[in-house]
């Protein structure tokens, strides 16, 4: 499949109504609804936002806006062209199995020639819980170039508000632990690496794979099922109150209501001082148990829902902030089971390696 054919098909997919691909039952019924109305409705009259959706197209958009953009939320024509090139390059990267990505062989070849090897892949922390690039063919990428300069759209500079001193202290402690060159325990790793959860925001913020979710509706409920890490939120729209504040959880308690064709979801009852609002539920200061999340889902076309998340946590952030990007329906895209903990050999392997390194360090120290 060459690049042009791929882009043509992607283009068709973007404008085609749902329901062209056999086996996608959600698409078939949605196509019927979509064709009869600009704002599709379920049979009982709620806006219809059902289907399989992915945040793949926002993969590559910086979470926080690089400072030189200032308050500009949209790319210029030239910047967009550059990003379009990256998108098509990424697709080719995946379609060709990752091009000639051979850093290991490069090291061996250099050693054979007696040359200095190219620097090995570096991670964020240098040691400790660090990681290396995923070879291309395992990854998933954007199908279209996003116009956004950042995922954060408010405050106007597209950057996180300042942390409170308490939150900064929590973040510093966390980063210190992550840099520990020989991890002491499974608690050195994120809740994602421990296969526990990525949290509400982390389950939809795009990463290099696994960005899919399914929305299923029935009278009185909207349910959202996320592939990674197999999370589900059952959102009642019947006006019931939140759970008692004595019952808390990683995904919190969500209640929803419709404002026109927008589903507004409010989430409270979170377990605090653990997860962050960031990629994979990590990469930021732990939020407090008082955090309140407000999300909006608005279907603006057969294949696009505009998603918005407002974070309100005065104990952590000195101001509320908002993330917004579209999630899209892609013909042929389906979720697969992501049973994480069941196959988490890496955690066992990493810890046993760490204890081996402890032994070596102790022996060397003597």
């Amino acid at each position, binding site marked *: 499949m060459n690049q042009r054919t791929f882009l043509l098909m992607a283009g068709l997919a973007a404008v085609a109504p749902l329901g062209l691909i056999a086996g996608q039952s959600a698409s078939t019924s949605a196509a019927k609804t979509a064709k009869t109305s600009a704002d599709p409705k379920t049979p009982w009259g709620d806006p219809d936002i059902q289907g399989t959706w992915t945040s793949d197209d926002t993969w590559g958009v910086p979470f926080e806006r690089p400072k030189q953009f200032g308050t500009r939320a949209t790319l210029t024509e030239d910047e967009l062209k550059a990003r379009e090139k990256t998108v098509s390059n990424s697709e080719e990267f995946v379609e060709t199995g990752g091009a000639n990505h051979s850093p290991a062989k490069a090291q061996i070849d250099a050693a054979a020639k007696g040359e200095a090897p190219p620097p090995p892949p570096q991670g964020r922390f240098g040691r400790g819980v660090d990681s290396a690039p995923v070879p291309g063919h395992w990854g998933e990428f954007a199908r279209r170039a996003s116009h956004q300069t950042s995922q954060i759209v408010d405050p106007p500079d597209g950057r996180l508000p300042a942390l409170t001193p308490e939150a900064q202290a929590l973040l510093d402690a966390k980063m210190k632990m992550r840099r520990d060159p020989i991890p002491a325990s499974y608690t050195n790793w994120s809740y994602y690496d421990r296969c526990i959860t990525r949290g509400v925001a982390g389950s939809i913020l795009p990463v290099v794979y696994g960005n899919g979710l399914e929305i299923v509706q*029935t009278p009185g409920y909207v*349910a959202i099922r996320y592939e990674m890490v*197999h999370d589900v939120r059952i959102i009642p729209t019947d006006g019931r109150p939140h759970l008692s504040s004595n019952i808390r959880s990683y995904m919190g308690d969500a209640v929803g209501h419709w404002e026109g064709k927008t589903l507004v979801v409010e989430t409270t009852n979170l377990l605090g001082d653990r997860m962050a609002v960031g990629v994979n539920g990590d990469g930021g200061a732990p939020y407090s148990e008082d955090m309140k999340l407000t999300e909006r889902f608005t279907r603006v076309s057969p294949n696009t829902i505009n998603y918005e998340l407002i974070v309100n946590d005065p104990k952590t952030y000195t101001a509320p902030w908002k993330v917004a990007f579209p999630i899209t329906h892609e013909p042929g895209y389906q979720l*697969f089971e992501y*049973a994480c903990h069941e196959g988490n050999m890496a955690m066992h392997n990493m810890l*046993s390696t*760490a*204890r081996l390194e402890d032994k070596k360090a102790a022996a060397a120290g003597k």
Partner: protein
Amino acid sequence: MSNGKPNLTGLWQALGTADWDIQDHSASAGPLYQMGAEGAVPPGQGIVEGGEIPYTPAALEQKKKNFASRFKDDPEVKCYMPGVPRAAYLPFPFQIIESQKDILFAYEYATTNRLINMGKPQEAATDTWMGTSNGHWDKDTLVVDVTGFNGNAWFDRAGDFASDGLHVVERYSLIDANTMNYEATIEDPATFTRPWKINVILYRHREKDARLLEFKCVEFTEQLLYGDLVRKPSGGK
């Protein structure tokens, strides 16, 4: 529902002790005497039609081995996904969300969930814990055909199991507005001499504002699974 089908949406849970043992069983001691009566196994009437699971002789030997090490090897101890049909009779509620397209089952235990494909049946791309579910309506009964299992889940805490050749056909039908009959036909020539059935009654939770809560049990298993690999405080190891 406006498509004429019964609406199975709700928070459901089985009573009884099938998760301990799907066959008839007496009360017995649990693995930790320190837990006293709280840690003991309650008695139960089995849910297997005909009483006994028709294991092949070799499979029966494996079941006995599983039973002997059940408090260590049961996937439920490790917070692994329960598979089908065990998910239906765990001592935890589950939520059904029935749309007019696909049907979602969200189980409180381990945040296990699966989507029943109600469109054109799809083959399993790979083997998984919860299998690949294709459903259709047989009059007012929801029939779910599940294949593509990885053979790692158990049927209960007593070591009952099957291989990755397992094939389960579930039938969900309302007895009345708040009670559902659940029947599953289990087939696996590598493990059983013939197909066999289980039958469980599911009850709707009717408490005010009853909703699915979260039991993310991975954290409760980390000490068990990784505790011996955690750095001991200095002075040890």
